[in-house]
């Protein structure tokens, strides 16, 4: 805002121009597309019209459902809810948790668990609690029950923890009651419901279906897809290479970025210029990163790296054809791609550290290294956690552009029969299977759900951590 005074027109006028341009741009884009939006409107109207039918279906299902299976699922959910609530109540301030009445909290947890279990067990038709189910599917069913229970338990915990004062604090300073907030939330809610919730529900339903010979269409198959995934050698290799690549991408990109950020935070002349020169790779896409590294690592004398290695050490490794080296090319490209973003946030974090603390420690005789590990690094932990999550997410999804350009076939083959690829990471396999029209949709959906649960777990853990930090800082 301090720059505004230098503008030739007043900030108010500039703002009006910008606002008008933005709204005009949106109008020019959307007005000719009203027909397309009408299709969305029809879809929504049909969905809303179908809601009563859905409720009737649910009621009919529970009326006719095998009572024992429903009871088992509720029991498993309730036990899970009670135990986890007791654990959570112990971890957080027990006096504040449900005002100290732990038994009440545990009871609420059991109820939420039993009810929450139905969120996932209803679409699965309680099939994993059927008497003739095999052990593997039953175990998957237990996990699914617990996940469903968690969906209700997490909000219940938030309620039970109660934040004294949170309510009182914000009573003042609101607009008076009106239907306006609902109007403001309509676009966000519609887009999230149609383009995220609906496909997410779809993918879970599809993951329960598969082709059962001889019928051509897919039919309900309980957890069979998940059980098959777990025993599929190609999928297991893909899983392992994802973890392997993710581990090294995250480790190197964070460590190198932190070192660079510490260097760039020194008070020297032209620090701003150096910063810009260090963070710009954030704007380079994974695809472009992939093609650059493809050219650098290509074989034959014309590749940059093999020319350098060949003329100095006399070795010319087959970077993209050796199954042990190809993942490292992916790691190198991804680390370079992530570096700018990580340096950016670490520099922001380092600026945030109070210098008086460091000076006090310095007066106490703490050396540079000691000050870094005892003060700087712990104070950077929120940034490290944020970057950890974004980098893991990148290694799980964003990496697709890098992998697809560097190793379009999923990397050098290995494994018995050579059906696994060394860089055939989960997201790459997921997309390749989706493009392959012959591949079973149910198996693909199950892969997506597993990946989804992995990242969701990670994201929730990060939230818990950040929340606790906020609590400690008071």
């Amino acid at each position, binding site marked *: 805002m301090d720059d505004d005074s230098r503008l030739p027109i007043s900030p108010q006028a500039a703002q009006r121009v910008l606002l008008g341009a933005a709204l005009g741009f949106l109008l020019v884009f959307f007005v000719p597309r009203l027909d397309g939006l009408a299709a969305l409107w029809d879809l929504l109207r049909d969905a809303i019209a179908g809601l009563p039918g859905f409720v009737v279906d649910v009621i009919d299902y529970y009326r006719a459902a095998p009572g024992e299976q429903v009871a088992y699922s509720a029991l498993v959910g309730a036990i899970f809810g009670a135990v986890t609530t007791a654990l959570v109540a112990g971890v957080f301030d027990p006096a504040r948790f449900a005002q100290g009445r732990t038994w009440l909290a545990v009871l609420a947890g059991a109820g939420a668990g039993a009810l929450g279990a139905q969120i996932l067990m209803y679409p699965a038709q309680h099939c994993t609690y059927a008497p003739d189910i095999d052990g593997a599917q039953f175990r998957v069913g237990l996990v699914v029950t617990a996940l469903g229970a968690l969906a209700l338990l997490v909000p219940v915990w938030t309620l039970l923890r109660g934040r004294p004062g949170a309510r009182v604090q914000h009573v003042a300073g609101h607009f008076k009651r009106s239907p306006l907030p609902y109007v403001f939330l309509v676009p966000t809610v519609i887009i999230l419901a149609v383009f995220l919730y609906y*496909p997410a529900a779809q993918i879970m339903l599809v993951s329960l279906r598969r082709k059962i010979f001889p019928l051509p269409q897919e039919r309900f198959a309980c957890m069979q897809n998940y059980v098959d995934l777990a025993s599929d050698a190609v999928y297991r290799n893909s899983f392992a290479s994802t973890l392997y690549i993710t581990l090294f991408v995250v480790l190197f990109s964070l460590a190198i970025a932190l070192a660079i950020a510490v260097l760039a935070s020194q008070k020297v002349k032209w620090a701003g210029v150096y910063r810009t020169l260090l963070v710009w790779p954030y704007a380079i896409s994974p695809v472009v990163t992939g093609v650059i590294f493809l050219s650098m690592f290509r074989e034959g004398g014309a590749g940059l790296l093999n020319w350098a290695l060949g003329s100095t050490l006399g070795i010319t490794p087959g970077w993209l054809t050796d199954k042990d080296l190809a993942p490292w090319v992916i790691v190198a490209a991804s680390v370079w791609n992530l570096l700018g973003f990580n340096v950016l946030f670490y520099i922001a974090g380092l600026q945030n550290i109070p210098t008086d603390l460091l000076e006090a420690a310095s007066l106490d005789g703490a050396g540079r290294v000691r000050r870094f590990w005892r003060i700087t690094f712990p104070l950077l932990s929120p940034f490290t956690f944020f970057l950890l999550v974004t980098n893991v997410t990148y290694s799980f999804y964003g990496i697709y552009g890098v992998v697809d350009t560097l190793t379009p076939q999923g990397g050098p083959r290995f494994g018995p029969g050579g059906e696994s690829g060394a860089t055939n990471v989960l997201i790459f396999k997921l997309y390749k299977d989706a493009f392959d029209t012959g591949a079973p949709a149910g198996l693909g959906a199950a892969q997506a759900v597993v990946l989804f649960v992995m990242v969701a777990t990670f994201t929730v853990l990060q939230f818990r951590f950040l929340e606790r930090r906020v609590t400690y800082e008071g």
Partner: protein
Amino acid sequence: MNRRPRYGIHLALIVVCLGMACPALYALQVSTLTLEEAFTIPPKLFPPSTDFVSNVRTLFDGQHFGRLIANTLTVALVVVVGKTAFAMLAGLAFVYFQFPGKWMLFFFVLLTLLMPTELLLVPLSNLIADLQWASDDPQLALTMPFLASALGVFLFRQHFRNIPRELLEAAQIDGAGPLRYLLWVLLPMSWNVIGAHAVIQFISMWHQYAWPIFLQLSPEDQLIQVGVRNSVISGTQTDFGLLMAAGVVASIPPLVFFVLLQKQFMSGFALMRDK
């Protein structure tokens, strides 16, 4: 404390900057080479050759890079502007109103943090097929699913919460309604957050790659990253000069956008940290 110039640090910083720029400098050099030059041994690392312009011309004439860049720019800007508008409205509702179901609606938004679009491309493309957007209006298919996100709502909710409530009381005394308050009080105080949000959204839209492939659009409706990937598919030998030129051309717009808004980006997140 330390007044003398610190040559050691300057030297280290210059080395690091150069090291980081190395792949990009290499790409710039290769983008000037002809098909034959890109395969000479040893690699031609200096001086730049003469083919950059002709490589770029090939991309724009033969592979409609002009169309692709225009498509991507439109899609990215629509998402940036639309998402900012929707997220600000949602932030306004969550921070300045009390209404039944607020907590549930907030949880509804929060939960979408766990639903990455990247994993939903198959059902999403089926949905788009039902709406007939991929065939009739690819730009709608490329923008609509990205017009709302938990991240944007959080960013603005957090920012609005840190704005002193006294401003609202003053505005209410002047008789300002919610929309006027948003436009004339909150907006002028939010440019840094808007800038930070815009950078993230613009760059993530510019990097869209898997989603446009899933939509199976015709070549001239595609986005730029797909264009880069496909720029050398026709031909037996990879034309690295052409490929690097494609990479360079595709990287210029996001680089410009990022460097211009870099300051806003940094301070936008600095504001978020305050509380």
